[in-house]
């Protein structure tokens, strides 16, 4: 049950290549679980930008001096995030959330490996906390283009049993991709379950590695979204259902978290010929 809240920015601060925004948005924290996301209005009342921008929820505080707050982390990508980066504390920010299906937690205290790419680490940190609370072993793999894009490294080190780092440019940790180090981490930690959030190519690689080992894997995908609430059908990708049939499903309400092996990675961006309702050739 998401809420639309006319919020106010409590703080906005630089974190490496990102900015972290905390918004006073009473009601949202209580409903939020790791993996949920927010949809944020951008540009002000006379803006030419009509659509909300989606951001994974990083942190929430049920109550504070100002009421409940919700925090997200973003990097400047286009016009909307450029506008957001110019906001200051005290500015209004209309947010809708929590949205989407969050990560499902393991029933028991299993060994869990989390894989985050860039700002994709943000939703994994509250997940790590929840997993620790359940007594899970938590190993984290963080990857990014460069060290300024490694979000949450300190938090990860504080919470995890181990942290492995990769960067494309070698500025931190191992030069390379998370998929280069993941197999070793999975072996060492005896992982029972994998969670991942980051760029689509990374999610695919992680899903494949997990699938090859028969390890269940949840991924939080990122598809272009017009509404974020399930009414527009822009955010679909081909996913295999319980019945074995492929459907074009809405990543905003049926995701963003999917089982990695259910997503037809090869066919993302297409409608596979065997999808339900696909055009007949």
């Amino acid at each position, binding site marked *: 049950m998401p809420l639309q809240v006319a919020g106010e920015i409590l703080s906005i601060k630089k974190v490496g290549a990102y900015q972290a925004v905390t918004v006073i948005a009473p009601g949202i924290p209580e409903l939020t679980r790791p993996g949920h996301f927010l949809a944020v209005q951008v540009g002000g009342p006379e803006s030419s930008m009509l*659509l909300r921008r989606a951001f994974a929820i990083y942190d929430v505080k049920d109550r504070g001096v100002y009421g409940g707050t919700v925090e997200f982390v973003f990097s400047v990508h286009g016009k909307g995030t450029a506008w957001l980066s110019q906001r200051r504390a005290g500015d209004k920010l209309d947010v809708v959330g929590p949205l989407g299906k969050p990560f499902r937690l393991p029933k028991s205290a299993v060994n869990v490996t989390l894989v985050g790419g860039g700002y994709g680490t943000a939703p994994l940190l509250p997940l790590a906390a929840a997993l620790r609370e359940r007594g899970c072993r938590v190993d984290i793999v963080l990857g990014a283009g460069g060290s300024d894009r490694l979000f949450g490294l300190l938090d990860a080190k504080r919470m995890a049993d181990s942290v492995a780092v990769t960067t494309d440019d070698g500025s931190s940790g191992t030069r390379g991709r998370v998929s280069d180090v993941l197999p070793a981490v999975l072996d060492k930690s005896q992982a029972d379950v994998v969670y991942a959030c980051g760029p689509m190519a990374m999610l695919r690689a992680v899903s494949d590695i997990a699938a090859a080992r028969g390890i269940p894997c949840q991924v939080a995908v990122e598809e*272009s979204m017009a509404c*974020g*609430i399930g009414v527009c*059908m822009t955010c679909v990708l081909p996913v295999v259902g319980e019945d074995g049939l492929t459907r074009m499903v809405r990543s905003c309400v049926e995701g963003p978290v999917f089982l990695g092996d259910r997503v037809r990675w090869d066919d993302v961006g297409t409608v596979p010929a065997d999808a*339900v*309702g696909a055009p007949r050739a």
Partner: protein
Amino acid sequence: MTDMSTTLAGVTFPNPVFTASGCAAAGRELDQFFDVTQIGGVVTKSIMLNARSGRATPRMAETPSGMLNSIGLQGPGIEEFLTKDLAWLEKRGARAVVSIAGGSVEDYALLAQKLRGHKAVSMVEVNISCPNVEDRGQVFACDPRASSNVVDAVRRNTTPGIPVFAKLSPDVTDITTIARACVDAGADGLSVINTLLGMVIDTTTMRPALAGLTGGLSGPAIRPVAVRFVWQVHQALPHVPILGMGGIRTGLDALEFVLAGASAVSVGTTVFGDPTAPVRVLAELQQALEQRGIARLADAVGLAHRPPETYVPERPDPVGDELVSTDVFEEHS
């Protein structure tokens, strides 16, 4: 308190603010944000006979004050729609305006039959902006005869008394010809307008931004075009009720459509940025009518067509013709 009720071809709705087809699914998601029984009606996403996967992604591009979409009518097909979506709307007590879409006149006739007698259907909207598979993919709504055939088939197969509205495309030279053809074929009213065909080129890939190449343009960007079409259709067919839409964001925007001739309005794309927009627009429209001393919404419909007040100059004697000497002033350098 302005009486907000509106009567569309004999069926009275408590108020004139509806959702727009394809912008509200079948109401269930929006019901999380506001009580969908509070608005005039829920116009459902156009449904086809069979399940449709829609087009490949990307399916959308944001544009200045608008967006392009090329969903390709993804949906579960009429059977699942009836048992899941329409059943939910009925249980919820919402007024359902069911939008139907097909690739042939036969499809439309079958869809209307499927809906026939269903208590939950308050109105049928016929989305004729679909390619006619039997005519080289030519869009029905661009041809008066094809439009007429579809409307006729739907009207014959729809429960008598349930209004059938034909939804017109703006991508035509003369909308009044199409409007007349639809009305002559039995349309009880007209939905004006569907999206404008548009395109965005991705300057990074240097290819069309949408997988489907072209898409439909919606949002405030198209509002002046939509208002003009409503005006033209109302002028040509003043007794035919119009469901007006295209870029409505506020109550004053809705009022523009009403003044131009719409008896009800749909709020579409705005919902994506503001999920509670329909109830907000309704409240703002009611307030605007009250402020203008209009007792009944129905009295405002088409009001902008009335002849302008005869101009009474504030000071009737004209300025004298003799030129006053101006040589006291310097010339500009």
